[in-house]
């Protein structure tokens, strides 16, 4: 039969991703062995680099914040039956919105800048997703193709803006001037310090809490509102949606707007929270990692959180690894990340069948008298 085997919930959400991850790490270990380093030492270095100290945890979660936003963006579109590859471009443009607010309203108080920066990020991201969504809904242009193209357009547009308009006068590198201090997000160490918990200074900032809130919001919207119900019906069975009086084309546009808005919030973390200026290519592929995060997290906010932390850890632990083990360079780290994506995403069904058979046999034996 062609349909994937059904697994019990705990195996589907816990065991299968764990097995896939293990397989990816195993193969990574073999590769590290081949280039003449100890896999075990490498694993230890990576884990230590990702979770070994307050500083490493801070960096890991800082990276994870980006992936939560883009992972949620992919998941919302997925539930509407759409594959949004354009997270990178939407994050790029969303960051522009956030950045412009921070540049222009630097003299305003923080509490007034913050909501405007959030709204601007969401609106710019949503607007960038709207065009492919509209083309899909009204013209049938495939959203995978158009969102990919819009990543390139976003990239070209931002380069032009940064080189010609936003660049700080008298400077070589294409970056805007720095945001005023009250147009930046406080670091999490500052916030924790205020309530008496000491924490090392890291780029981890208030945007992390926004990401968690976005996860809750997505969960409520998709699983607990009638709009989310309509979204899921349209995503899983568009004929049933029409039968129920739900317009799939309208859902397509609405879902992509929300998806783009979520991706657009990446600028909160990256620009307002950490870099404090608009610069070239700040999404750094987070839109694509978001696809892997959503896949691995089963398109559920809780799963996305854990998958985002995993990819944050790979990012942070990987840079630690390449620093301490010169033979494992940056490219090797990308290979390891690629293997994780390969096993958790593309090959996620490889172990499904055998696992289902195993569990069925094991479960069957347990039921027998």
């Amino acid at each position, binding site marked *: *039969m062609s349909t994937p*085997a*059904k697994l019990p919930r705990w195996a589907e959400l816990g065991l299968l991703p764990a097995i896939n991850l293990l397989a990816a790490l195993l193969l990574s270990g073999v590769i590290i062995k081949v280039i003449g380093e100890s896999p075990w030492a490498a694993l230890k270095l990576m884990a230590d680099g990702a979770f070994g100290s307050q500083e490493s945890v801070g960096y890991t979660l800082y990276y994870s914040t980006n992936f939560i936003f883009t992972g949620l963006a992919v998941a919302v579109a997925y539930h509407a039956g759409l594959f949004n590859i354009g997270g990178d471009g939407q994050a790029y443009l969303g960051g522009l919105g956030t950045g412009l607010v921070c540049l222009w309203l630097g003299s305003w108080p923080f509490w007034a800048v913050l909501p405007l920066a959030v709204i601007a990020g969401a609106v710019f991201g949503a607007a960038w997703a709207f065009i492919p969504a509209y083309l899909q809904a009204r013209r049938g242009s495939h959203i995978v193709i158009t969102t990919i193209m819009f990543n390139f357009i976003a990239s070209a547009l931002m380069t032009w803006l940064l080189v010609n308009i936003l660049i700080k006068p008298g400077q070589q590198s294409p970056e805007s001037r720095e945001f005023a201090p009250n147009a930046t997000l406080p670091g999490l160490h500052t916030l924790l310090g205020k309530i008496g918990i000491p924490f090392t200074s890291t780029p981890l900032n208030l945007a992390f809490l926004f990401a968690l809130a976005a996860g809750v919001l997505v969960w*409520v919207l998709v699983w*607990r*509102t*009638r709009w989310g*119900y*309509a979204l*899921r*019906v349209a995503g*899983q*069975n568009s*004929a*049933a949606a*029409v*039968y*129920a*009086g*739900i*317009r799939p084309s309208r859902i397509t546009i609405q879902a992509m707007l929300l998806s783009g808005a979520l991706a657009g919030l990446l600028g909160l973390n990256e620009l307002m929270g950490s870099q404090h200026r608009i610069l070239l290519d700040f999404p750094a592929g987070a839109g694509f990692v978001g696809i892997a995060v959503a896949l691995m997290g089963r398109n559920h906010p809780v799963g996305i959180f854990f998958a985002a932390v995993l990819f944050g850890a790979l990012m942070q632990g990987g840079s630690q690894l390449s620093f301490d083990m010169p033979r494992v360079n940056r490219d090797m780290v990308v290979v390891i990340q690629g293997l994780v994506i390969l096993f958790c995403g593309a090959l996620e069904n490889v172990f499904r069948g055998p696992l*289902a*058979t195993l569990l*069925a046999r094991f*479960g*069957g034996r347990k039921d027998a008298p």
Partner: protein
Amino acid sequence: MNSRPFAVTPSESSAPALELRGIDKRFGAVRANRAISCAIAAGSIHGLIGENGAGKSTLMNIVYGFHRADAGEIRVAGRVVEIGSPQDAIAAGIGMVHQHFMLVENFTVLENVVLGAEGGRRLAGGMAAARAGLEQLARDYGLDVPLDAVVSELPVGLQQRVEILKALHRGADILILDEPTAVLTPQEADQLFKMLARLRAQGKTVILVTHKLREIMAVTDRVTVMRQGAIVGEVETKSTSPRELAEKMVGRAVLLRVDKTPAQPGATLLAVRNLEVRDRLGVPRVKNVSFTLQAGEIVGIAGVAGNGQSELLEALAGIRAPSRGEIVLEGRDLVREGMDARARRRLGLAHVPEDRLRMGVVAGFSAEDNAILGYHDLPVYQRGLLLNRSAIHGGCTQKMVAYDVRPPDPGLHIASFSGGNQQKLVLAREIDSDPRVLLIGQPTRGVDIGAIEFIHKKLVTLRDAGKALLLVSVELDEILGLADRILVMNSGEIVGEVARADATEEKLGLMMAGVKGEGRT
């Protein structure tokens, strides 16, 4: 019903044409076939009957090499054979005619028959040999088909004949037919049965997989009944009755006839005038259709599948926009007002779709989420901005109890329910909304006999409560059993209207084939 015009005594032969011993097949946790052993005599027509999900198709797919059995052996003419693929099955002399034809529509008959058995690099030689072979077959079995006609231009009955020829051309001695009459008119079905009888007379063995008791009684020599993956009985057709077979299939006594009183039609609720529906390519599928539907009656639309009934139903329900005409529900023209399915439901026009899995349910959802499909924005199911999960859960539990949906667990995945129980839930959803008019397509497709009985009773109760029902079904028995008035559709037109009292299968069959009936011109 007990007449068996095509039956003859099977020829005596030492080894059975096909013998199965201890076939076991498991899909995940489901045992689709358990310890199946049976023997099918050479030169006989053997029926395989059972409800949907009883394991008939799995068993035949094992014999034809689509699936591999977990245990057991297959013997053809006494010899054990390993069947790992359809190629192996063909080599062993087994041919299969699928319910959905496996033909390339824009190829000719000859090209289709040759496909996969071209016999060498150059096509011409194989084609010539095939032509000679087919002409021989046509002479031997009386299977006349225009070899150079394009398949898409042939009527369905002839397309099926092409499938049979294809199997015979590959040297099949055992022919498996899976639900062969689903797409045929009663007359075409009779022709098929005559053809099968001729094949048997020439020594071929035929296995007929079906859920229609009438066909089993009419044409088979022996019949094997399956239930829940196992064989529950094998009898000689002569010595059994439809009632006995039905009881074996279901496991309990069943009512094959619908009890109902004459209809008491009231006011006209739905009026359709000059309706025309075109498909995506602009081809008219429903042509100038007009009829009315009164309170307290069931109007049946009979016709061979694909003659515009589906498009008509979808246009009425608001799923497909008509290109012309009016649909008036109690004085309001739904077409002019541009109402979609949701708006029509609010006016009291409920719809049980023909294809449950394609449209009626969302396969990935739980039962309770499916129980609000189309009604998810009713105020009862809201609590502020959120969905009222407990109301949804409670509403579904209520429906499941009232309609005997088993198991009555609203949280369970809809795919875990049998077809009959899914259909009962869909019916519950549409009927509980208290509609004025109910459109029902194929109410018992893929539904087990026990549930059919229940569903038919519900529909009659609904009629007696003064609702208007429009029933579209390709099962003529169902139309004859339920409808008070019958409209017959052929290539998009209503070719006739018959009162139930005047309707016979034969008369309807002729009209379904396009012969205009009386009452309309």
